């Protein structure tokens, strides 16, 4: 399976690569297990990691804020063994959180292999002995965007009634109608998340990646966010 090179990637590059990557990896998985055809990307991500990427998935005792990490030296993803408690706290399905986390780690595997493999830990681990390089936050955002595009294919999303409504509304000039839709965005997002078997947080990133919504991150809680329709007017003001 070909790997992406790890030059710093633009947002468009990552969206494009995650889409192409999903097609390639799913195709390879279905060559091995044709009986899995028709399943959602979220339902295939673990098997892609096991049997297409040839990585392992294990559990480890991690602090509650750390959902998982990749060990490139042994090709293993370590998932937090207490992910179910985190899922309860976030009020999301454990399986959705697990699949979303795995897709994020798949993003690291596919986007950052040489960067992650060639680290010199003596200089890499900073004074607090955590990641201490200028790219670490950027890498996390890249992996998150990769997961958002990987798990919610644009073509499948665009077939849903919810997204058809959003697409139509983007061109509206009627403020009241836009406000009414904005107030329903959170529940629309949750419905789509349930349908695609991902977390609402991840789904909001997918809608943002396809330029349907604007996502405002909470300042204290990384799982808190607010959504707003990406209207033409808004875009014109910000472009």
């Amino acid at each position, binding site marked *: 399976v*070909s790997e992406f090179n790890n030059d710093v990637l633009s947002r468009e590059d990552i969206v494009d690569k995650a889409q192409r990557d999903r097609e390639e990896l799913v195709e390879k998985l279905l060559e*091995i*297990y044709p009986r*899995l055809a028709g399943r959602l990307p979220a339902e295939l991500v*673990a*098997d892609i990691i*096991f*049997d297409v990427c*040839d990585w*392992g*998935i*294990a*559990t*480890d*005792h*991690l*602090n509650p*804020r*750390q959902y998982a*990490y*990749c*060990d*490139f*030296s*042994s090709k*293993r993803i*370590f998932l937090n063994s207490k992910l179910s408690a985190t899922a309860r706290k976030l009020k999301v399905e454990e399986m959705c959180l697990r699949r979303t986390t795995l897709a994020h780690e798949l993003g690291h595997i596919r986007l950052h292999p040489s960067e992650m493999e060639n*680290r010199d*830990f*003596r200089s*890499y*681990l900073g004074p*607090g*002995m*955590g*990641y201490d390089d200028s790219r670490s936050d950027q890498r996390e955002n890249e992996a998150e965007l990769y997961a958002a595009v990987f798990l919610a294919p644009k073509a499948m999303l665009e077939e849903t009634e919810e997204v058809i409504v959003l697409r139509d509304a983007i061109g509206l000039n009627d403020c009241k109608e836009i406000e009414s839709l904005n107030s329903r965005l959170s529940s629309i997002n949750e419905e789509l998340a349930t349908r695609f078997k991902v977390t609402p947080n991840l789904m909001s990133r997918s809608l943002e990646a396809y330029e349907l919504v604007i996502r405002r991150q909470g300042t204290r809680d990384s799982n808190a966010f607010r959504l707003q329709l990406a209207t033409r007017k808004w875009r014109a003001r910000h472009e």
Partner: protein
Amino acid sequence: VTLEVFGTDEPERVRQSIQQSYAAYLRRQATFGGYLKTLRRQLGFTVNEMAGYAQVAPAVWANWEANVHLPSAKEVLGVAERLKYRREVKEKLIDLLALAPEQLIRQLSFFCLEKCAAEGLQMLDVHQMWKGFPAKVRSLLLAWADKKGHRFPEDLVYLVRELGDEEARQAWADEVLGGMA
């Protein structure tokens, strides 16, 4: 066909690709989890399906394939019985299980730094990590630390961080494993 399979039709690169794949296959076969994975792939089952036939949770099976939280010999024999493995397969699984502590020590310096990098040392619970190592691994590490005047598990992460390149890490693992003789 060559282009489709190997991404190239240059004979030298095709040869290299075959050699690399074969070396990876042999490396995998030399560990308990890797062999378990090969057996599953030969049967054409996913992890979920295989775990179902073996009557263990999928996460447990995945841990075994990843050579993490390995089963006892008794559990291996129980699973092998349910999966109707031949005697040679059962014996190979038991032999590979016995090699697991050595393999874990060889990988330990890498994955404990990855874990540390992901969590940050302040958040890393070294005692919890230590408890996760098999008893045999803990006793080998303690014996080495005693000899060298280190305090384990407290000093473990700092020590492996200073080991440097892969060669130095393997040399350290050899020293620790010297206690197995």
